[in-house]
């Protein structure tokens, strides 16, 4: 079995998915049109007339 300093391939793959995979996914996602649409959608839910408390 392929190992790197005692780490097997499945464990290494899990680590690469976790780090830096998670961070790269987030950075890509937050630059997509989908995220901008999501922001615009939720920004319409509240306005200054909607006083709370």
């Amino acid at each position, binding site marked *: 079995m392929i*190992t790197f*300093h*005692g*780490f*097997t391939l*499945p*464990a290494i793959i*899990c*680590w690469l*998915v*976790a*780090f*830096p*995979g*998670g*961070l790269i*996914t*987030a*950075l890509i*996602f*937050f630059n997509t049109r989908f*995220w901008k649409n*999501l*922001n615009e*959608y*939720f*920004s*319409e*839910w*509240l*306005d200054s*007339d*909607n*006083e*709370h*408390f």
Partner: protein
Amino acid sequence: MLTDTADINWGSVSVMVAYLILLAVIGWFLKNRVKSGNDFWSGGRNVGPVATAFSFCAAYYSTAAVIGGPAIYAQYGAGYEAVEHIGNQFVSCFLMLIILGMKMRVVSERTGSVSLPGYLAVRYESNAIRMISAVIIAVMMIPYGVSCFKGIGTAMAVVAGIPYNISIIIIAVVALIYMVTSGYFGTAMIDVIHGFFIMFGIIALGIAVISASGGITQALDLGTSAEPLLGDIPGPLDSWPLFLSFSLIWAFTGFGQPHLVTKFFALKDSKTISIVAIISMIWCSVFAVFCTITSIGGRGLFDGRLSDWDMLTPAIAYIHGNFLIQALFLCSVVAAGLSTVASLVLSAASAIAKDLVEDGYMAARNKPVSNKSTAALSRIVTSIVILIMVILSINPWDMVWQLSAMAAGTMGAAFVAPLTIGLYYKKATRAGALASVISGAVITIAGYLIGLNGAVHPFMPGLIVSVILFFSVSKFTSKPSDEVIAMCFDKNWRKKTV
């Protein structure tokens, strides 16, 4: 070898005392931000994304982060930690913020909610669900907080040599000063400092391990030589159901943890969720990398030398750390414990003060409470909750430890469906939500009591039953009112129209 108490380490103690004084001073200066109960519980919905991100991470990682976490990874391996970290990164810091955070922020403002039971009561038009949720939170959060106090007290006794009971009282006094004076806003600001110190602490431990082992790869080699399965999955656990359910549990229970969900209530703006997510993910990544080096390298350094793996990080700091590493470790334990204690205290106290007393008892008797009175009530109840935690930390009952072990799983199973699914499922009904909360809590507690956690985490069956009942009971019971549907699902709804 380490003992339960050491001689007083004056250098580390001085740094820690300076740290605690700083926290109390910041809390005191922020006291004017609290003018009502709502300001106290949700920071006036004016907490920025940086403070929210650090507050979220610091509450998510309790003392377990710097004591229990490395102890578990040293036994279950780097593969276990990698999968747990995938859950933390993709589920807790990414999906949770998108699925739950954004909508929860806007809906909590529309419903005027500052606590999880308060939101559920409006969403499902039920005072019963408010009361049941508040009781579950109060009963589970207090023992959970006691276990955090115990973690801080034990670490302070081992590393700094301060007697356990005195450690608990010192921490409680500091928590009392900054939480009671500045409420959620001050707590969130202080969590930024806590967040940095938790990170500094784990980095310091990692550096101590690297230094003692002779390098990063040597540290990993040392650990995998001591236990070859540490570098594999499922590794030493040798069971996929146990491996997956235990490593991923925290990520999924997060969707139902009151002390995490209420962070979104207080966020200044739903659009800043992306900043919260990116900061949280960077924080978690740095933490995870150094935690792996600490736990795997630490296993190699201390294999066969510790009777209790919870002593791993104190042992690394005490034996392989210099004055600076010991001081940073001590501050990180205090930071990790205090940040979680603060979130737990605020959740438990809001359940009692806001939901049971103010919106439950007083509202039922048509006794309106002024802003000044709600702020005073919030402070009094918060003080009482801290006092109860201190008494139970010094004189613990066996039941307290049992409840603290069950807390996260039970609240997760009880609240995930009515809270998260109910945000998007219009047909969810009062009866469905009640069935879901009760069944989730009861099945999870029963799972712990019958010893199900030897095969699978009891949160899993609790959650499955809770979700099934949520949908099936909702299908056959009367639908929520049009007002609630509009308030929670129509983006054009405005308060004046109701």
